[in-house]
């Protein structure tokens, strides 16, 4: 170990072939569960019809690459927006859009999927601030994904 390792969120790691077999992989083409476009937080309109009364996923960009079964396990039946709390600019716009999901689109639930790296918590903080400023309350769940695609934590937030 060196004394200074830099930002843990961008620390290089390799876990290729760690469990070597892919016996549990499905064969054949897996159908996409994406039911809308656009998806990037700056591009979406929070009141687009596919957000109205919907169960919404707000996903950190890296999540879909880490989670092996993202489409079937999380995306199926839900609407989505993606964002990076570390690199994206003008995140106050994100906060306004999340608030509009709560108050205007009257979404049913919000599931926030973030990576385990510390900077990803920023997305959850953004959601909590938006929730505080919103008039309507929406059940919100936080799911933390490990860099190897395991679900580290999944719970409803206050």
């Amino acid at each position: 170990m060196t004394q200074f390792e830099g930002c843990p969120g961008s620390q290089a790691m390799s876990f290729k072939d760690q469990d070597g077999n892919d016996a549990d992989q499905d064969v054949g083409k897996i159908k996409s569960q994406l039911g809308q476009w656009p998806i990037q937080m700056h591009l979406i309109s929070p009141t687009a019809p596919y957000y109205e009364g919907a169960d919404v996923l707000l996903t950190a960009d890296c999540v879909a690459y880490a989670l092996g079964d993202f489409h079937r396990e999380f995306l199926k039946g839900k609407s989505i927006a993606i964002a990076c709390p570390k690199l994206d600019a003008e995140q106050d716009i994100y906060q306004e859009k999340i608030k509009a999901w709560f108050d205007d689109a009257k979404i049913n639930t919000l599931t926030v999927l973030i990576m385990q790296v510390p900077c990803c918590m920023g997305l959850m903080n953004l959601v909590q601030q938006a929730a505080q400023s919103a008039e309507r309350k929406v059940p919100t769940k936080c799911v933390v994904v490990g860099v190897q695609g395991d679900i580290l934590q999944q719970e409803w937030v206050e």
Partner: protein
Amino acid sequence: MNEYLNRGIKEIITEFPEIDGILNDYEISCGPCSVGTCLLKDIVTIHRLTKDQEQELMARIAKAIHPGKDIKIPEIEKRTEVKPKEFRYAPPIKKLVDEHVLIKRWIGLIPQVVDYCDLKTEEGRQLILDGVDLIRSYADKFHHAKEEDILFKYFDENSDIIKVMYEDHTRARGYVKAVLDALDKGDETAISENLMAYRELLTEHIKKEDEILYPWMDNNLSTIQVGKLYSQFTKADKEIGFSPEKYERFIINLEEKFKQKEK
């Protein structure tokens, strides 16, 4: 042993009283339950035991039923993997658990209410009327109605555990009616008896919900259902036509009053 898995718990406890104590060691208190028709296998499934605890419990029950014999313990098929005790409830379930807190505070005051009960004074009569109002409006119309009209509809209402909950609610209503009848007749003893019976019933009832039923339901609700349930609860609370804070103030004042009296 297998045949016992499909028998009602009360029947088993009646035949083998020792099993009540064994269940108690695992914080499963079926003894005081008013109905007791839950099947042994369901009771083991629904309580949040680890695999080892379940094996140990089943071994002890088998020993009580067939003393001296070496019994093979049947494995019980788990319906869902149950989470450990310290988990965060989904928001609609948490709402109900939070409402239990005020009901429990009221239940805690009942022995003092009974002691203090003096029907000869207007204040004494009013205290009973206010208590009954809390039970009927807050505990029943506000809280039990959300369980009966909304939450329970998401599950099989013919399952034993939900039938027990309905039966408890009905019995609670019976005690409250008896309190009012006794108040009309000026019968202080009957008021005390029925309030104390209500207290005992609701204490066990809330314990069953907080520790068994709600965690199990919480585990079995999908994210979509959690959202729907939350909206339905919010709508029901808005339409109730009174402010629940009124009852919180009543409890705070009553707690304060009894504290002053103790001094």
